[in-house]
């Protein structure tokens, strides 16, 4: 019926006609504009704030931390991040003063007339400086969080290992670079209620944050998500900051206030992917069987904690890839530096861990002289095997399938041979690289139990089925996928199913739109709510006509019961609502049976299920300029079930290009804690000419507890692209780059180091 079909996007027509309204497209007649004055140094104490008398301050409203009525915090995990600086500045770009004015130009002009004077303090600008406690930014040791995962005994296993391979890898910041910058419009009503509209992934995160800042009740805050032009995690928690600022201004000036970030500002001030230093020490048999894996992974969290512990958690759990290893020791920390706090970016710790892990596998293959394919086959997890945290993989393990698929489609083994022999005339070298990876779906351990995500479906008076969920559409297809699930569950046409407005006063808290959980977890809750609706409708009809509920059939868009002509679902729904009033059913998440996670010892079932992937990337390296041309990209992804194959492919292709950018050209350049390349001109993401044709293979090993077998999809594509690319570069040139992006400059350095 609808599930498994590539139906067109629900909101597609608006998007191709320019009718879709993003936050900056909204304007209200009495609206004012907000501007943020930010710190220009990485660490210091504010000694004075001077407002120039060359500017007429009566024309604008100024807000500082003293205007915050209840709590000056950005609510997350530790509540250490202030919404506005009080006296100590901990990173460049930290918000200090807010200005609202009737026009953008006036607000901008006012912001140039504020002078902030600081007493500078020593700034911690790297993981090394943080660990050495060059200055105390968080607690006494600058460590936000630490986790250890232990299995067996690595010390004993290293004794008996025939070979030990060590490697050290580094990944830098990556900027989400959604094409629509952050934006919020806040309206603070006279009755004390607050309406927030804007670009975001998690309306209930913003809702909670506003309640904390302003001391408001659930009903007094309404958060409405507008069409969002990309998020990728960058709009998971950061919109709470923008919303808090806009709301403070709106409250003080008595007008709706719009804050839309200019690109350079958004880049400089908002969250990024955590950099990480990853060290591996691996003990193996001579023929490549893993015996012991020791990993140290240190993430740079920036100045405040935000969600760093959760990124760390995922990073340590995925530090060893989808491989069997009886003895494991993973030490992970996330530390504080005087840089803008890092946050969520698709993958959330796994792209970092996977770069280290897969480059280590490449390193091992090279050291042992065995094929990268053989190494994966020898060690890969299969159904029934046990992971590093001691989780037995009971179902939906597509490891062999994705590896086989990608190797076959890419003709990997012949290519390797071909490139070995090749000697191209125009001084170019070709190579091929492989990566193999997995990604746990949903929140770690008991996370989903804590969230208890809810969704509802209701019949409306016109006979339509309306989906009520806080899961947001950010381009990944939520509005369409959920409609497909509901239509399939009821056996009706998708035309009869509508997606309710993402407004916290109208929809229940489904949990955030993150962690590859939208289809797998919330989609399942939507499916359950729909099953409940089906039951409710049959019950109401049965009561009315005097039969058993089991005798009422809802099938193929029709509703029938004994001794009666079948009627259309629409008619039955209209009648139901007319006779009974609102018909609405809810469902709430419950874990699949048998999931056990030990939060203290970090062992057990980390995720209900993993998704699996394998990538093959081919490159051509110009040996005169060391520029890399990506010539072929093939991915295979086990996502359980593609509810909408075209949308699944679209997510995989998009994620893969972000991953290739991460590996090839995306680098944040810093000086004294300030970002130098905070614009599109000098922060390089791939254009259509930088990316070749890509082949996307969907593998479906159904997950029994996901809707129609679906499991996590959104982040998996981000994990394997960078190591596959860097492995291809190594294959082509012999240059083993251990820090990404693998720019031509780094490739040149690696080649020169090899010659020494």
């Amino acid at each position: 019926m609808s599930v498994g079909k590539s139906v067109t996007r629900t909101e597609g027509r608006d998007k191709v006609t320019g009718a879709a309204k993003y936050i900056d497209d909204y304007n209200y007649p009495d609206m004012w504009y907000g501007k943020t004055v930010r710190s220009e140094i990485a660490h210091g104490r504010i000694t004075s704030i001077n407002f120039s008398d060359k500017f007429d301050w009566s024309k604008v409203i100024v807000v500082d931390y003293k205007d915050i009525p209840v709590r000056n915090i950005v609510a997350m995990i530790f509540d250490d991040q202030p919404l506005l600086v009080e006296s100590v500045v901990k990173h460049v770009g930290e918000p200090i003063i807010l200005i609202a004015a009737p026009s953008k130009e006036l607000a901008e002009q006012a912001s140039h007339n504020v002078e902030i004077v600081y007493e500078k303090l020593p700034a911690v600008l790297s993981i090394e400086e943080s660990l050495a406690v060059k200055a105390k930014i968080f607690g006494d040791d600058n460590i936000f969080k630490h986790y250890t995962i232990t299995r067996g005994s690595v010390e004993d296993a290293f004794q008996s290992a025939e070979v030990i391979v060590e490697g050290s890898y580094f990944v830098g910041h990556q900027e989400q670079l959604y094409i629509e910058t952050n934006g919020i419009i806040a309206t603070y009503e006279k009755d004390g209620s607050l309406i927030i509209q804007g670009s975001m992934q998690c309306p209930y995160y913003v809702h909670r944050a506003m309640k904390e800042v302003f001391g408001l009740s659930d009903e007094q805050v309404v958060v409405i998500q507008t069409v969002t032009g990309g998020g990728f995690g960058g709009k998971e928690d950061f919109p709470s900051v923008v919303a808090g600022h806009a709301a403070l201004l709106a409250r003080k000036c008595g007008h709706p206030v719009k804050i839309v970030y200019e690109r350079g500002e958004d880049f400089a001030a908002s969250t990024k992917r955590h950099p990480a230093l990853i060290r591996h020490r691996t003990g193996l048999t001579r023929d490549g069987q893993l015996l012991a894996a020791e990993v140290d992974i240190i993430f740079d969290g920036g100045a405040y904690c935000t969600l760093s512990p959760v990124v760390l958690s995922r990073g340590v759990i995925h530090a060893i890839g989808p491989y069997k290893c009886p003895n494991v020791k993973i030490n992970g920390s996330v530390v504080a530096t005087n840089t803008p706090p890092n946050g969520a970016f698709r993958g959330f710790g796994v792209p970092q861990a996977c770069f280290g892990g897969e480059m280590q596998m490449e390193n091992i293959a090279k050291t042992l002289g065995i094929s990268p394919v053989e190494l994966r086959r020898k060690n890969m997890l299969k159904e029934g095997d046990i992971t590093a945290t001691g989780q037995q993989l009971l179902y939906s393990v597509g490891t062999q399938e994705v590896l086989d698929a990608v190797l076959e489609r890419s003709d990997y083994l012949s290519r390797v041979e071909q490139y070995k022999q090749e000697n191209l005339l125009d001084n170019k070298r070709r190579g091929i690289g492989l990566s193999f990876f997995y990604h746990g779906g949903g929140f770690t351990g008991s996370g989903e139990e804590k969230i208890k995500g809810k969704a509802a479906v209701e019949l409306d008076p016109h006979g339509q089925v309306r989906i009520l969920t806080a899961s947001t559409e950010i381009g990944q297809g939520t509005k369409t996928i959920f409609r497909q699930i509901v239509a399939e569950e009821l056996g009706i046409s998708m035309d009869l199913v509508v997606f309710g407005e993402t407004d916290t006063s109208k929809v229940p808290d489904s949990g955030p739109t993150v962690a590859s959980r939208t289809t797998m977890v919330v989609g399942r809750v939507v499916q359950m709510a729909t099953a409940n609706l089906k039951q409710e409708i049959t019950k109401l009809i049965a009561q009315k006509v005097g039969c058993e509920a089991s005798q009422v059939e809802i099938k193929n868009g029709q509703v029938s019961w004994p001794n009666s002509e079948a009627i259309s679902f629409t008619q039955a729904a209209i009648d139901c609502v007319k006779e009974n009033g609102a018909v609405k059913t809810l469902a709430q998440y419950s874990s699949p049976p048998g999931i056990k996670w030990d939060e203290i010892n970090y062992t057990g079932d980390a995720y209900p299920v993993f998704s699996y992937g394998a990538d093959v990337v081919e490159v051509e390296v110009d040996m005169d300029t060391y520029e890399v041309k990506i010539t072929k990209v093939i991915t295979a992804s086990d996502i359980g079930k593609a509810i909408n194959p075209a949308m699944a492919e679209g997510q995989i292709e998009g994620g893969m290009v972000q991953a290739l950018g991460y590996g090839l050209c995306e680098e944040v350049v810093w000086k004294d804690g300030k970002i130098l390349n905070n614009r599109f001109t000098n922060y390089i993401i791939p254009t259509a000419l930088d990316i070749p044709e890509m082949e996307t293979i969907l593998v479906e090993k159904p997950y029994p507890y996901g809707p129609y077998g679906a499991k996590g999809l959104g982040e998996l594509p981000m994990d394997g692209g960078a190591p596959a690319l860097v492995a291809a570069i190594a294959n082509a040139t012999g240059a083993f780059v251990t820090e990404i992006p693998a720019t031509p400059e780094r490739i040149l350095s690696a080649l020169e180091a090899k010659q020494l």
Partner: protein
Amino acid sequence: MSVKLSVNNKDYELQVAPMKRLLDVLREDIGLTGTKEGCGEGECGACSVFIDSVVVNSCLVPVCQTNGTKITTVEGLSNNELSKLQQSFLDYNAAQCGICIPGMLIAAQALLDINPSPSRGEIREAIAGNLCRCTGYMKIVDAIEAAAIGDRG
């Protein structure tokens, strides 16, 4: 200053600051918000429009240079029906978050107006100035290719 221009076949006479960006004039003075700002520096192409049938970044054009010109924005690509290109973008799931799509459609239409049978390589070159973060470009190229073939067929 006073500027006279035609946008999507409708005439306008505006009193605007001469160096105001065409992008802002379209979005604010005329109220056509389909054209987007992504970067403010001519890199991302989200602000692409036609000026006298030539595709440009409207964030880089001062309105004083548009006097007497005919401008087409994304809103002008369809009448009551979607253009072949717009329909193709729907059929091939070329739009995800959608923010790059108005600019993408203009650049794609510019290509098809000059080259009705582009190769996939020529399509990529034509949209090289339109950055997309969601799609990886594949389905956008598919959609443009299909629209071109559809036109020929």
